[in-house]
């Protein structure tokens, strides 16, 4: 997946599917998913797994539940310390 280039950057901790993941300050939730080892974050109309793809808000591949609100584009959401990021159940079913 992805790792921080430098280990010394300031981080915040987000909770991805109940697992704490440290991510660099200033990241988006999509970056947090990728840094946390998930390149599958959901599925689409055809029930196939999809992951973050464009990271600029256009593809809707990274929609997840953030702090209880479903359908949010992870790439358009800045991380906050303690933010909860969950994939919806449909997506979990598709995880390889």
């Amino acid at each position, binding site marked *: *997946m*992805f*790792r*921080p*280039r*430098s280990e010394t*950057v*300031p981080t915040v901790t987000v909770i991805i599917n109940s697992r704490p993941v440290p*991510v*660099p*300050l*200033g*990241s*988006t939730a999509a*970056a947090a998913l*990728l*840094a946390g080892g998930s*390149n*599958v974050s959901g599925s*689409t*109309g*055809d029930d*196939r*797994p*999809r*992951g*973050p*793809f*464009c*990271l*600029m*808000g*256009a*593809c*809707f*591949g990274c*929609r997840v539940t953030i702090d209880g609100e479903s*359908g949010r584009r992870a*790439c*358009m*959401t*800045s991380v906050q310390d303690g933010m909860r990021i969950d994939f919806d159940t449909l997506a979990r079913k*598709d995880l*390889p």
Partner: protein
Amino acid sequence: MSGPSDSFDLIIIGGGPAGLAAAVESARHGVRSLILDNHPEPGGSVFRDLVAAARHRPGDLACFSAYAEAGLELLAAVKRAGTTILSGSSVWSVEPDGSVHASTPAGPRTMHASRLLIAAGAQERPCPIPGWTRPGVMTAGAAQLLMKQSGLVPTGRVVLAGSGPLLTMVAAQLAGFGADVAAVLDTSTIGDALAGLPRLPAAVSGGPDLLSYGLRLVHRLRRAHIPIHRGVKNLRILGKGDDGPAETIFWDGPGGRGSIAADLVLLHAGLIPDTRITRLLGCAQEWSAEQWSWRPRLDGWGNSSIETVAVAGDGTGIAGWRAAIAAGRMAALDTACRLHRLSVAERDRLARPLQRTRRRAMGLRRFLDRIAPPGAGFLAPPDETILCRCEGVTAGTVRNLLRDGCAGVNQIKAFTRCGMGSCQGRFCSASLANLVVAETGRTMEDVGEMTVRPPLEPMSLEVLANSEE
């Protein structure tokens, strides 16, 4: 609900280089403007996150040297100008009378302005090839944003495939960040490079610094012994099972068949203007064969076919951030003139150096468009390729419909749901039109584009209900 506080001289949609520059120029002439931007931070795809990077990871900025300084300067200027930027705000409808409907972090809001400046920018061109929907396949721009936003580097083997300056740039930046870049697969050919030669002089005088920056990047790739395969075609990505993560990318090239293992495949085939807002408004559009994309038809100041609407930046055709800044300022100057804050003579005087900047940028761009023809290699994907990522509609399904006499893109959309998923056609509309043109031999002007309807962004019914007056 709309009140005096929701009335402006100019509403700028998009907080990238064009929008920010327009706000700075507007403020200079007493034009009251507002910027709506749908990302958490302003700057657009090129400048966003530079402030955070400068603060938290100053060492990383060197990797983005070609534009970091200009970006930070522009962001500081807009701050000094005191323009309100509504970040995190999705515009879901716009009307020719100057009304803008948005869901903002503070709730739904309808605003109004004498003039609108659409500075919505561009997106990466969809690259439909077999396997491009697999996890572990992203766009090259996405990897660049991860570097800029978060200083993140891919952990496994990375292969970049497609064409265009950004492909080379991201490959070199990734290598500089310590990523394992295994190969660059370039769909453009030696013939394309030769065909670009007549345009080289204009490119050299147009953007000598950017051109030499590009050459340094190519040199850096060579020095790092990263193989660059040119003239590749028939790209396809295989992986675990039917839909699982990417593992290998295959291609056919001048030297025969090739394949390489990849944990991450980054695709790129140039940029296309985001024309959804101007299409929704009904602004006349024109097809650019050179850039293989639609763009609004504009006068030299960026004015569209609709009296109240101007457009600036890469949303008017890809020309890069320098041209976008100049175009944003020109649109603001013309707005100031129309609102009688600036004389025609003064507008023209201030615009002269900006026109020069745009001409120079186009000199470079016309060269780049020729050596890496936009979209090449992705225009007629094989039948099994998914065209519409959201609804899983394949190229084969579309071909069958065309053989059965299906007339056009809107009819195909209605039959297949291609373009009706959550991205609303942003990652299939262009590919669908390409396929129809390739299969039927009709012109792009004749085929046209999918109709754009509000809401432009998915929104909750609650927001929709609250916005009705």
